[in-house]
Structure formats: C-alpha cells, structure tokens
C-alpha cells in the first residue's frame, strides 16, 4: 500500500515537473544567430524589423520543409523544399521546372523572381510566397502544438500570422549561404586551379567572355534584369520577362540574373529551362544570342553579339563554372530539418 502511494507520488511529481518544463519552453529569449559570412563576401543587408535568431531560423527551417504550408492552397501538397532541393542548390531539375536557387538570397535587394515581378527585401518576397504563392492557412499551423511553442520562442507570440511565417522563412533563407567552392578555396589561397579552369576563369573575367558584368563575384549575380538575347521577338508571354510586369517595351525579354553558384547542379537553365546542360548554355552565348532592340548593351562585345568561342575555350569556361560547386553547402546537414 505504501509502495503504491509512493509510486503515485512519484508519478504526480513527474507530471508536475513536466508541466513546469512545458511552461519554461515557452519563454521568449531569442538567441542571436551568428551568420558565417564567407571571406570576401559583401556585408549582408539585414532587416532591423526581423533580427535573425536561432529560434527564428529553426522555425523557418521547419516551415520550409512542411507541406502543411500549402494546405488548401493552389500549391497543395508542396513545401518550399519540394522545388528547392538542397542537393540541387535549393533549385530543381525536374523536367519543365526552372526555379531560381535559394542561395545567397540574403544579399538580394533588387528584383525577385525570374520576371522581376517582386521588389523589396527578403521579407517582402517571403510575404509574397506565404500570402500569394502558397496562400498559407495559418490555422493549419496552429493545430501543431510544437509550432505554438516555436513561434513563441522566435517572436514572443503564440498568435501566428502570415508575417511571422514569412519572417521565419526569411531568417532561414538568410542562412543558405554558399561560399566554399573550389573557386573560393582558390581565392583564399588554399588550393590551385587546373590550367583549364584558369583559362576558363580568364575568359569569364575578361572581355573575351564578359560574364562578370552580370554574374558579379563573389555572389555571381547582380540581382538585376537583363535581356541576354534568348529570343528576338518573344510571342509567348512567359518569355516577355519584365515587360509582362511593367508593360514598358524597353523591358521585353529582361529576366533576373541567376547566381552561378553551384550552377553545375541547378539545370535546366534559363527562365523556361530551355537549356538542359551547361554545354548548351555556353553554345548559346557563343553562337546563339539573338539581337533585338532590348538586348542588353553589354551583350555587344567587339563588334558582335556572339562570343564565337573555340571548342577549347568552351571546355575551359565550363571547367571554370564547375569550380563554383560547393559540396559542403549542398550536403550541409544544418540546412535539413532532421539536423535539429
């Protein structure tokens, strides 16, 4: 009898302690997240309205991989990670799908999406993803008690709104930094490049290839809009680019510059995925650029719009582009939810 009473006492005590623990877990004391900015990268613009914290990043990561984000919406069954796959540099290689990789977006301050239809901060674009793209039904998230806890720990509120969802996603996306490729190691003096890679780098960073003006290192994008000559007079509205947004004929065919970081794994290429391989992309720049009144001025080099690269130059340029693959980023467990 005494034993039974003791057992009950222990059980009740344990229950009370666990209750107390649950309550403690709801404390709001966010820990600043220490972003590791690779050497030579510019300062990352931060949003003072959304300071990055460990709790916010963890919450953002959970949301990023959670298909409930799209419950009841036009993207039902999908999460961000459905089309932004880590091993593909947070892009997607599915046929007919061409998404801009979620890499180094923390530096983005200009245009968003292929046709530049969104502008503003990372928080602004994430707000678009939450409210317009996924049309997140936050009531679905509220059903998950762990979310209640995580939102409280990240933002000091159990009241989940689109804003908190977008801000948490923005915090997680800010941590998706790729800056440890072979090229980066070469820049840091840790390793050397092959002769072919060096020749390719010379093409990239000189008037021969003139890639650097738009694919500005170290981010390898200028986040800007350019017409690179994919079509002379695009008839399909999907190919109109910024023109479809602004209605200004000067914007016909302008698309946002994608980063070349991890470009080896982000195919298919261009806004419509028309090029399946890097070889096709290089062939395009070499011989396939089409002239038009809105072709970017920088595409006119040495009196022509084609680079006319030799087979060796093409090989070298590709060899250089492959040095931008950052395996440590593509496999980093901290960007996956199971690595909590």
């Amino acid at each position, binding site marked *: 009898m005494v034993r039974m009473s003791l057992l009950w006492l222990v059980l009740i005590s344990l229950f009370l302690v666990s209750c107390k623990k649950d309550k403690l877990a709801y404390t709001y004391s966010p820990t600043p997240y220490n972003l590791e900015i690779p050497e030579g990268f510019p300062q990352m613009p931060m949003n003072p309205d959304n300071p990055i914290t460990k709790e916010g990043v963890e919450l953002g990561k959970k949301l990023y991989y959670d298909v409930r984000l799209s419950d009841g919406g036009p993207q039902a069954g999908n999460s961000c990670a459905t089309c932004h796959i880590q091993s593909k540099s947070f892009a997607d290689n599915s046929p007919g799908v061409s998404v801009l990789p979620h890499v180094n977006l923390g530096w983005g301050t200009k245009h968003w999406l292929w046709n530049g239809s969104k502008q503003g901060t990372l928080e602004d674009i994430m707000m678009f993803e939450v409210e317009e793209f996924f049309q997140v039904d936050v009531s679905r998230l509220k059903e998950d008690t762990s979310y209640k806890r995580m939102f409280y720990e990240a933002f000091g509120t159990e009241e989940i709104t689109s804003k908190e969802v977008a801000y948490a996603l923005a915090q997680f996306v800010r941590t998706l930094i790729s800056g440890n490729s072979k090229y980066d190691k070469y820049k840091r003096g840790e390793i050397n490049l092959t002769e072919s890679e060096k020749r390719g*780098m010379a093409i990239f960073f000189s008037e021969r290839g003139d890639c650097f003006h738009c694919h500005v290192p170290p981010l390898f994008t*200028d986040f800007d809009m350019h017409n690179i000559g994919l079509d002379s007079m695009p008839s399909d509205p999907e190919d109109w680019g910024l023109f479809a947004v602004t209605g200004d004929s000067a914007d016909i065919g302008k698309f946002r510059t994608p980063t070349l970081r991890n470009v080896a794994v982000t195919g298919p290429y261009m806004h419509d995925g028309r090029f399946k391989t890097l070889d096709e992309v290089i062939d395009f720049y070499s011989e396939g650029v089409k002239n038009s009144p809105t072709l970017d*001025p*920088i595409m*006119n*080099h040495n009196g022509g719009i084609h680079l006319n690269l030799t087979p060796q130059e093409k090989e070298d340029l590709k060899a250089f582009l492959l040095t931008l693959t950052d395996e440590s980023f593509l496999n980093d467990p901290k960007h996956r939810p199971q690595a909590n």
Partner: protein
Amino acid sequence: MRIMKNLLLTLVLLMFFGSCKKNQTDFKGQGSIALKVRYAIDGEGLQMGQLKYVNEAGNVYSVTRLQYYISHIALFDREYGWTLIDTFYLFDADKYPIQRVVIGNVPLRYYDSIKFYIGLPPSLNHHDSLPNTIEHQEMIWPEMMGGGFHFLKLEGKFKETDTSSTISGYAMHLGTNVALVTVSLPAQIDLTEQLLVEVSLEMNVNEWFRNPHTYNLAEKSYIMGDTLRMQIIARNGQDVFTVVSVN
C-alpha cells in the same frame, strides 16, 4: 585735436582691417558642401532608355546605365591654395536622376574653384580599398584586366545615323589608372558666410563623345580593355560637368 582725430581714425581703420583679416584667416570650425548632380543632353534633361539623343558623330543613342565615382575633391582658395577632401561617392543616374551628396569637414574659406576625379585615385583603386558592399562589388574591374573599380559605366543603345535601321548596344566603361578623368570647374563657394553651400552640377552626356575627340560609337562600341579608346573617352570626360548654381 586734428592729430588726435587722425590717430583715432587710423586706429579704427586698423582695427577694421585687422578684424577682416582675422575673419579670413582664423578658421574656426568646418562647413559642408553639398554636391547636387543632374543629367542632360545639350540642355535637355536626360530620360533614361530613350533612343533619341544625337551625339557629335551623328549617332542616335540612348542611355540605359550611367554609374561613376566622384572622388578626390579639392577646393581652391587664393590664400591657402588647394584643400583636398579625400572622399569618394558612387553616383547612379538611373537610381537617382538628381543625386545629392554632402561633403563634410570643409574648412571655412572662400573658394573659387573645385576639382575632382571621375573615378578613383590610385590609392583607392584596388579591391580592398572601398567598403565591401554590393554596390561597390558591382563596380569591380577584374584583376586580370588590371584590377580596381570601374570609374564609369555608360551604356545604352545606338543607331549609327538617324536613318540606320540597326540598333546596337554600346558600353563605355572606364577603369584602371590610365583612364582617370580630372574635372576642374570655376565656382564661387563662400563658406565664410554659411556652413553649408550647395553646388549644383550638370553632366552633359554628349560631352563624353564630343570634345576634343569626336567619338563614333559605330567604330567601337565596347571599350573595356582598350586603353587607347578609354583614354579618348577619359579626355572627353574632362568637360562633361558644368556648374549650374552655387547657393
């Protein structure tokens, strides 16, 4: 009595001139000069992207990008000579059709001319010299082409003549120390009476193609890496600015 009067008058005059000299030479504190820059083509306000401007060679052209540095600003006054305000600013005509920057720590003097570089002085023209921001990264001049930063990016579309049907692109990019542009302008800047004087400048884009060398875009529309042509454009650039007003 008359001697006393004369002595008194002399004393007063001496005190007056003494005080004048003191005002001019005893500079307490510092002021600021605001540089306000706008853009035009021979007097007509620049409209970005409009293929309608005609340069000296008869090319019909537009401007789609106009970015440049102004640096190494120096002011001249007759007593002290040149005063260097060692600073730099990045200008972007597309982003800011009228851009105003305020140069601080300027000694309170009466200046009668101003000069500056379009570009960056050699001491700043290397990759780690400017703050590591996206804006400056986008102006970097690749190491393998000499390193440093673009001094100028002037880009747009053009037709060789008004009757030409072919529209091409042009990119007048200046960089490396050989293409540094020195601009020198007369300007009566009185910083003895007020602590902030605004100097309004206008860049006439046509001057990049006019004086002393008439530049035909059809002959070479992309000059990055072409030292000779960069120097031609740099020389023309000495006259692109005029002082519109000083207030």
